[in-house]
């Protein structure tokens, strides 16, 4: 890296929207030739900062200097040198890849000769060449992002602003995006990559960590995680104990953070603290393994928030759950949409009290499988049993036994918390004393007492998530369906959420969760990898990882395993595809 020069300098930058302070006195520098990660949960101020740098907003106080020019007075001087890719890039879905590129070239006034050369470069660079004449609307999520990136790169920007480019993109495409952006940084471009995924930050050269509009930390990721040296451990635990162990560990005074990672509990110790005896966590005597700290560990220990342990007592009271056999049984589930087979003979079972994750890229068929299992979609072939009931025969009975929480926390936003609870308890047929008890239980267990009369729509994300989960549990379901439950939520909330889910599983509730998010998958007991409409692998997360241990990858992550599984599936499928 040749002496990096600052491409962007922020000085006491403040931006308010009404009474909300989106950015609060931010001072930082973004260097050329580097990838700078802009990290933080939804609503941290990432998009606002990108828009301010792009000159689309004016700061309320402080200043921004971009490539040596002031963003307010001198924007014309640098506007051509920045490439901005918003969260929803403005692709015209009814135009082809080529036409989209041409349109953006017109907007940038590129002449014919430059245009041809840039198109050829970018199309081969992004691997979109074979899809040149395909409609943008028919590209996969990952390819759309690559096309967006190609459009943003057309005019050879010196500063590239990317707003959550990897959101909703499968791991394989995500790696492609990183490769492209890494090459750009190598050519001296200053890249700003905003993300809500903390694990992505570790790949950046430097990072700016935001929460609630404030810059909490910045610097090189390695320095940030280096502070936790010798403070992170992995404790292997026997099957069925890790939720309990995680709760005990999280409450321990020497522990800053405890999370579930596959079959183990991951501990982050407080500064200067000693490792607690693994026996009190119910370990079987194996020595805790020291492990490399992650960015997320550092983030959580930086915040040092005492989280109240989740208590889920009083659900089911142990009754009504002892079904015999599997809680969820999918047999040869198949779904066709016209000529397109979205799900192809998927078979799997989930045991009672198990947390099962359906993992796969967007469009792989995991949502379709999920929707068939909770009765939102009829299978074309095959059958599904949920909580001992055949969905094809007695869907209404099955529905009384399942709870469902969608990605968007589907609540009635203009109704109060209590109205929402009243409504959902009513449609689940709860009445009289039971209804009152269940509502009281929900308000109590999910800490909703303070907001009970507030409009659900105006609540902070964490409250909405808790309310949505509370509504899904009102009727004490045996099986809980969670659709991407923690997308966009900050790591602390995610921890609290999964603690509750763990406690629920310990009570015997079966949980089926979809995700395209590797962090979330670590919390699952078992995973099913869905790809191209098929279930290409099932197993415990550590089993899946272990399959891909090699000299090159001594400790593969779940993402490594996922990408390897998909690649080997593609390699097998290809000869068959050519033959037909």
């Amino acid at each position, binding site marked *: 890296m040749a002496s990096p020069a600052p491409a962007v300098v922020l000085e006491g930058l403040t931006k308010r929207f009404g009474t909300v302070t989106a950015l609060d006195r931010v001072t930082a520098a973004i260097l050329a030739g580097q990838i700078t990660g802009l990290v933080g949960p939804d609503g941290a101020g990432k998009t606002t900062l990108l828009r301010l740098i792009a000159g689309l907003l004016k700061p309320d106080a402080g200043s921004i200097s971009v490539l040596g020019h002031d963003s307010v007075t001198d924007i014309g001087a640098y506007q051509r040198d920045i490439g901005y890719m918003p969260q929803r890039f403005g692709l015209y879905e009814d135009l082809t890849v080529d036409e989209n590129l041409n349109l953006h070239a017109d907007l940038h006034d590129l002449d014919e000769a430059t245009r041809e050369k840039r198109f050829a470069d970018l199309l081969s660079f992004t691997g979109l060449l074979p899809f040149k004449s395909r409609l943008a609307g028919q590209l996969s999520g990952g390819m759309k992002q690559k096309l967006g990136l190609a459009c943003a790169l057309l005019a050879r920007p010196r500063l590239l602003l990317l707003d959550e480019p990897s959101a909703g993109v499968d791991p394989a495409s995500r790696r492609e995006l990183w490769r492209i952006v890494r090459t750009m940084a190598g050519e001296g471009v200053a890249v700003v990559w905003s993300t809500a995924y903390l694990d992505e930050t570790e790949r950046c050269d430097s990072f700016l960590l935001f929460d609630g509009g404030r810059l909490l930390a910045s610097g090189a990721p390695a320095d940030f995680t280096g502070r936790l040296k010798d403070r992170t451990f992995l404790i292997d635990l026997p099957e069925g104990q890790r939720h309990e162990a995680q709760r005990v560990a999280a409450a321990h005074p020497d522990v800053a953070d405890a999370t579930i990672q596959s079959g183990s509990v991951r501990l982050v110790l407080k500064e200067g603290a000693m490792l607690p005896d693994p026996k009190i966590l119910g370990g079987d005597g194996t020595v805790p393994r020291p492990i490399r700290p992650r960015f997320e560990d550092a983030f959580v220990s930086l915040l040092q928030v005492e989280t109240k342990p989740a208590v889920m007592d009083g659900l089911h009271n142990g009754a009504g759950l002892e079904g015999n056999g599997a809680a969820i049984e999918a047999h040869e589930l198949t779904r066709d949409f016209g000529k397109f087979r979205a799900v192809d003979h998927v078979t799997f079972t989930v045991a009672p009290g198990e947390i099962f994750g359906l993992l796969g890229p967007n469009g792989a068929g995991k949502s379709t499988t999920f929707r068939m299992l909770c009765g939102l979609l*009829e299978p074309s072939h095959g059958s599904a049993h949920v909580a001992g009931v055949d969905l094809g025969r007695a869907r209404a009975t099955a529905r009384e036994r*399942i709870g469902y929480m969608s990605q*968007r926390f*589907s609540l*009635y936003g203009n109704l109060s918390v209590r109205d929402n609870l*009243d409504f959902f308890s*009513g449609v689940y*047929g709860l*009445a009289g004393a039971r209804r009152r008890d269940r509502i009281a239980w929900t308000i109590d267990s999910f800490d909703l007492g303070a907001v009970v009369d507030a409009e659900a729509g105006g609540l902070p994300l964490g409250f909405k998530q808790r309310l949505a989960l509370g509504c899904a549990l009102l009727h004490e379901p045996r099986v809980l*369906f969670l659709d991407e439950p923690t997308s966009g939520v900050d790591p602390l909330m995610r921890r609290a959420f999964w603690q509750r889910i763990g406690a629920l599983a310990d009570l015997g509730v079966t949980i089926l969760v979809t995700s395209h998010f590797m962090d979330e998958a670590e919390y699952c007991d078992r995973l099913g990898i869905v790809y191209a409409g098929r279930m290409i692998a099932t197993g415990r997360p550590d089993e899946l990882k272990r399959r891909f241990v090699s000299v090159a990858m001594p400790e593969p992550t779940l993402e490594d395993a996922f990408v390897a599984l998909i690649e080997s599936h593609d390699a097998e499928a290809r000869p068959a595809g050519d033959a037909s």
Partner: protein
Amino acid sequence: MWQRIRSLIIKEFLMLWKDRKSRFVLVAPPIIQLVLFAAAANFEVNNVSLGLWNEDATRPARDLVSRFEGSPTFRIAAAYDNPVAVEEDIAAQRVKAVLHIGQTFSADVAAGRPARIQLLLDGRRSNSALIIQNYAAAIVEGFNREYAPAGAAGAGLEIQTRAWFNPNFESRWFILPGLTVLLTIVATLMITALSMARERELGTFDQLLVTPLRPMEILAGKTIPALCIGFIEANVIAAIAVLVYGVPFVGDILLFDVGIVLFVLSAIGIGLVISSIAKTQQQAILGVFLLLSPSTVLSGFTTPIANMPQWCQLLTYVNPIRYMMELSRGVFLRDLTWALAWDLLWPMMVIAAVTLGYATWLFGRKLQ
């Protein structure tokens, strides 16, 4: 089951009540339109420049002419003695109409034979032509009463029946009963089409579908609140028309309300069909408006259905507004009997059954 539907209904009312926008949609546009239509949309025509082409100089003809002269509506602007000049002046819009009295007019009147006068109108302005025709008919009728022997066939122009019920040509009387119907359908369609699309947009629709609620219960939970609101809205607007604007209400209020229930049900069916097809609230609104403008035109609100070409008239038979419009005017302005109203009630029942049935089917099919 009833408890589940009850929860849905309570929620539906709460949502409407707590959402400032939907409250606004229900209250403000009807009032604004009521005031606007009552004040501005005036069908009355005054001071019409009338040409006179009189080929008969005797007393009955002169008397007829003086009746036109004496009316506040007409002003004799020109006299003609040949058809060429008449045509020229109408084409150039120098006169709005020409009254032609033939040579045999007085003789026919005296002999008690049907006498013919001709009213030449500027057909390019069909609406005002129609009104002018009505005014002229009223004058001719007065003339008939004096000259035609009792029991004999009337002289001159065919008399439009509408003048019987609105002898003063008060256009408000004519507009407001129709407007009541239109405002009711707008409110009902909006509520039903939007509420379903909104649930789909928010994702709460899936949430409903995974509860033990059956499709029929969800539809009932959507239908009943909309029915209540449509019913109340229609009655409030009717009351304003009567109490504030002095439109008479001579018919049976029960008949009006029975009609409104059937009418609102058919509107809810249409709204539910739209919302089953629309994916977003925007599409739902677009659907409502795409449907509303042609059905308003084909309802007889501004132009009589009898004046439409045959194929247009056929289209009006599937339009619930057509029936309710006629029923509303019937109970407001004349004492429409239940027997006569039956012909208007049963088509609305059929439309309601078909649209609600289709919506249920569509809804069930979407779940597959």
